[in-house]
């Protein structure tokens, strides 16, 4: 079993969110190394990341409609500095 398989297995065994620092400790790698591994898993389509498609201007204010209180990345009080989140991609 490779280290990438262990990331996926640890994630499947978890029932809620897991901090990347905790996961790195569990599989015995440094956090920067884990970030690289997560990036590869995301690039291969095993994980889906929140950072590429998340609520900022791209999704919220793409010209379809836009709220007034939150008009995009600069104006939404809850949009900036949220954790980047990666979830397992489930084949439908």
């Amino acid at each position, binding site marked *: 079993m490779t280290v990438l398989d262990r990331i996926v297995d640890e994630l499947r065994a978890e029932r809620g969110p897991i901090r990347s620092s905790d996961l790195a400790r569990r599989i015995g790698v440094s956090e920067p190394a884990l970030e690289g591994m997560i990036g590869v898993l995301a690039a291969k389509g095993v994980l889906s990341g929140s950072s590429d498609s998340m*609520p900022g201007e791209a999704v919220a204010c793409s010209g379809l409609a836009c*709220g007034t209180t939150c008009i995009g990345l600069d*104006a939404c*009080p809850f949009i900036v500095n949220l954790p980047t989140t990666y979830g397992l991609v489930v084949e439908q």
Partner: protein
Amino acid sequence: MSSFRIDYGAEIEAAIGRLTPVIAEATEIADQFDARWLAVALIDEDPGIAEQIEELPGGDEILRLRDQLLAGLRSVMGTSAETAIAGARFQMVNDIVRAVTDTTQRRKRTRTDRIDGVLTNRVLGIPIFLAAMWVVFKITTDVAGAFLEWIDSTVSGPIDHLVRSLVGGVGLGGTWIESLVADGVVAGVGAILVFIPVLFSLYLALSFLEDSGYMARAAFVMDRVMSGVGLQGKSFLPMLVGFGCTVPAVYATRTLENERDRILTTLLVPFMSCGARLPVYVIMASVFFPEYAGLAVFGMYLLGIAVAMVIGFLLNRSLLPVTDPMPAIMEMPPYRLPTFRSIWFHTWTRTRAFLREAGSIIFVTTIVVWLLMAIPVGGSGSFGDTDVDESAFASVAGAIAPVLEPAGFGTWEAAGSLMSGFVAKEVIVSTMAQVYGTEEVEVGEDSAIVDSLAEVFTGLGAAVVDATTSIPGIIGIDPASDAAEETSSSLSAAIRNEFEESSGGHGALAALAFMVFILVYTPCMATVGAIRHEIGTRWMWSSVIGQTVLAWVMAVGVFQIGRSAGLG
């Protein structure tokens, strides 16, 4: 440097073993590439390599065999070949790193780990989050409350007087133009100004939490709560965005892969109390619960979360059965000491953005409401000079008002405010200022402009002092007085009188029911459009009708149960 070979596992090594001799036989290709390296690159589905090989003699045969092997690998392995290859490479790097580095330092808990141990603790995390949010809303209500009163008294007093004097000076006093300028334009500008202290305080407090790195932890903590009602890991992000504005929150549900999760999250997002509802809470709480305004506002936000959780729980067991929870990895930012410059930038940018976008909606709606209030329906008035009780606005709102009587606020003023709130929650305050402001007390008609200006600045000074002295009270130190002062502006007095009258002396209960109604019913037209766009017309109507009915049931429940219990 000695060469080494990565073991990619039995299945992939077997595929490499079949591909390598075929590559070696294609001489032109074998001359350019190492056979094993090329076999690995092809199985890794490197697109650049495949393109190069395709053009060379024997390339087609190699690629056909590669495709056959990949199809076989897919059926045998649980994961794709390229992921397995990447995994083997990372494993080798990891083995080398572990062999040559001292990992004792890595195992030591950092300061961030120790802080996280408390702030994201399974037991302490949620109480700490709630306490942090309580402080945020306490700051918002206490600091902003002082300025709200000043803005209201300044707009409805000296500024209104000044404007009427100027209009009268050009010979238009007593005409509909004076009414348009004073009751429409000035009231509209006043309603926009009301948002500044509220949102500025909120954004200031949240920017501090955000820049410190705490908001990311709050998201982590709340994720566990959300998963308790069958919401998937990533659902918490749209829910959190919903505290800012529901429209982008609805669009943010696109990040959820599963349709069931998208529908459920979209239906629950409107229960997260958006920023536009906050000024209404602050005004109502300041008028009716001055000592517990922060708690009342905080309670509205908690109630929104609780309602969402109950609805989510019920939908899980009926229309949208729960699926397995989808875990997620969260990369937390490090803790930082926020800088004044950064906090100021965030706060100012957001407040300005809100005013720019919402200001126009508020202003236009104010003029529309004025117009409807200026049109006489029956009675003996004329355009711009009619008893407001006999206006078109009062007639339409009055038709809805009886439905709201069991909730204690069955007046055309309250019904009209809720009606305009369906367009956007931002305009509730302006409509309230217009409909309740019609019973204003005359403010010093003979006083000079200089006196009016002096009154404005004196009031501002008092507001600054009030806001400053309220800050120690947030942490339990109250050097000024033991009891908060009740707001006493004309708008506050008019709202208090109307609610007391409509509820038969249970004004505070009726106000609470009104706040609950605002929290639960459909946020705005833009949200309705977003819901339709994302999950279809059927779910949109379910959301609109369901929320409105639920809002009525909850408001009536709050008022009737409270009255039966002798509260308010």
